[in-house]
């Protein structure tokens, strides 16, 4: 009896299995997208709820009056553009970002080349020390710079006095203050460029240089005809990326000068903080920070196309 019933039960099991497989496949297809959606839901919430929605809300805020009771259209923007203080903020932000990125890129490039010359064992030690400015929280290292720039206790001025040079008003005069905030930004950011360029340098095939050496190319020719073309993509991505970070920089100026002297070193971010949070004019502050948006959009477009091109090259 048991032997007889065995066969159909096995058969039944097998058909059930195939049916289950078809059913399961259908369920899998249905489940796959559901699972994917559930898995990305927290990310979507962060992007939409905490980045996209506040950005749109910021545009709405920028079109209100100071008490946020009436809609004023683009009045805040035209008001800002007419003020000489804000015109200066635009100039200073562009000057700060462009000057700082140029110096970061140059110093980073020089450092990367020097590092590439030495054996990898000692490279590690130098790299570990040189990257420290990037690792220390920017607000914390800027406090030390503030102390180094102190009008009466400046250790830099002490050293200058020893060398017989006059004391420098690091944060007291407009152009010295502008120089100082750029100096600190370059100090923090140059190691990042170095790391990116060093990674790019290592990916240039050695055969190219050997072939060039046989052809009698000079060091300068190797740099212009091999290194730079091979690194072009990574250089442009790093520069654009750093431009965004530098344009949006807040910590350095806020701590060192707080915009002074006479608002001459304000950036969009620090000026928006002063106008929006400290003076309590939220709509005007939103308008100030929104001036960053068009520039950021242009940079983001170029970075994205650069990254996509690079991904295709790699694949």
């Amino acid at each position, binding site marked *: 009896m048991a032997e007889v019933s065995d066969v159909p039960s096995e058969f039944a099991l097998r058909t059930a299995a195939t049916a289950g497989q078809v059913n399961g496949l259908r369920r899998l297809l249905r489940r796959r*997208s559901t*699972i*994917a959606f559930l*898995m*990305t839901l*927290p*990310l*979507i919430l*962060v*992007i939409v709820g*905490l*980045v*996209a929605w*506040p*950005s749109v809300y*910021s545009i709405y*805020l920028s079109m209100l009056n100071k008490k946020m009771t009436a809609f004023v259209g683009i009045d805040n923007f035209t008001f800002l553009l007419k003020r000489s203080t804000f015109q200066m903020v635009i100039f200073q932000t562009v000057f700060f970002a462009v000057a700082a990125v140029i110096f970061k890129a140059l110093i980073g490039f020089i*450092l990367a080349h*020097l590092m590439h*010359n*030495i054996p990898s064992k000692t490279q*590690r030690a130098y*790299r570990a*020390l*040189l*990257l*420290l400015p990037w*690792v*220390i*929280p920017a*607000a*914390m*290292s800027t*406090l*030390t710079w503030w*102390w*180094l720039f102190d009008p009466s*206790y400046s250790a830099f001025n*002490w050293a200058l006095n020893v060398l017989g040079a006059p004391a420098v008003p690091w944060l007291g005069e407009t152009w010295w203050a502008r120089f100082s905030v750029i100096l600190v930004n370059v100090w923090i950011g140059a190691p*990042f460029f170095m*790391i*990116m360029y060093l*990674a790019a340098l290592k990916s240039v095939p050695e055969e190219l240089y050997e072939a060039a050496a046989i052809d009698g190319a000079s060091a300068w020719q190797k740099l212009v005809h091999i290194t730079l073309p091979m690194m072009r993509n990574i250089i442009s*991505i790093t520069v654009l*990326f750093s431009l965004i*970070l530098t*344009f949006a920089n*807040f*910590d350095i100026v*806020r701590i060192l000068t707080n915009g002074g002297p006479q608002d001459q070193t304000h950036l969009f971010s620090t000026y*928006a*903080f002063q106008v929006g*949070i400290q003076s309590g004019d*939220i709509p005007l502050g939103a308008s100030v*920070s929104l001036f*960053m948006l068009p520039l950021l959009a242009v940079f983001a477009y170029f970075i*994205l196309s650069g990254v996509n091109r*690079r*991904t295709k090259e*790699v694949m």
Partner: protein
Amino acid sequence: MNAAQTAVSEEALAQLHGKSMRRQRRWALWGSYIALTVFTFMFLIPPIYTLTTSLKTSAEISSRQGNPWLVQHPVLDNFIELITDDHFQTFFLNSVKITVVVVILSMVISILAAFALARMRFWGSAALATGVFLTYLVPESLLFIPMFQIVGALGLMNNTWSLVLLYPTLTVPFCTWIMIGYFSSIPKELDEAALIDGATYLQMLVKIFIPVALPGIIAATIFAFTVSWGQFLYPLAFLFSSDQMVLTVGIVTELIRGDVFQWGKIMAGSLMAALPPVIIYAFLMDYYISGLTAGATKG
């Protein structure tokens, strides 16, 4: 004889050439060492000065006698006073609390999302991946004004926990972005084999993807940690009482009262606040650097 002569001279020429090449190389090597040492010294001036000032007494700092770069009577008073200070302890604990919660939250969100985006193609997945990259490029200085209104409306103003809402906007996009890169580099054969064996997606993630992509997870965790630990703008805008304050802003607001700057303590405080990221960097440097370069090179 003639032929032998040319052969000899050619050999000599080659030797000479080789010598000059070697000499050139040695010059390049030593020149690089010297230049790098000078650069390293210049880059380390601020950290060194932080340390020397933190070891000075207020009297020594204000005396303005002797070389400010050297310490005459090193003391640990600044550190001891800060460590035993109630406010400083609160700042530190708040920083730790927020950083731990934000890091865990960011990693859970980004690992789940990156897995789905890297392996489960679904409607809108490509657009979402681009969206991740774009939100990564939105700086905090663009968001803090609308966030000021939103945090206020939620009743979270001057509440440390508001930072748990704010920091993921800085950490999640980048962490997701580099995790997509790491997950995509895992060969597809592995998950096909797992699917045939009847593994669910969750099992696949936990048993294959997370162990294989562990270096990427460590790199992303380090990034989330350094960003949350060092953030300055959000706590400055949203927190104002010392029981809710975090370390980065607390040092500035607490130790600077009007015109009184306690530089010795400020430097000791900033040194201690910088220490956790520096220690992590010292031990996990390779992961730190791979996370740094992954942003632009996609894994």
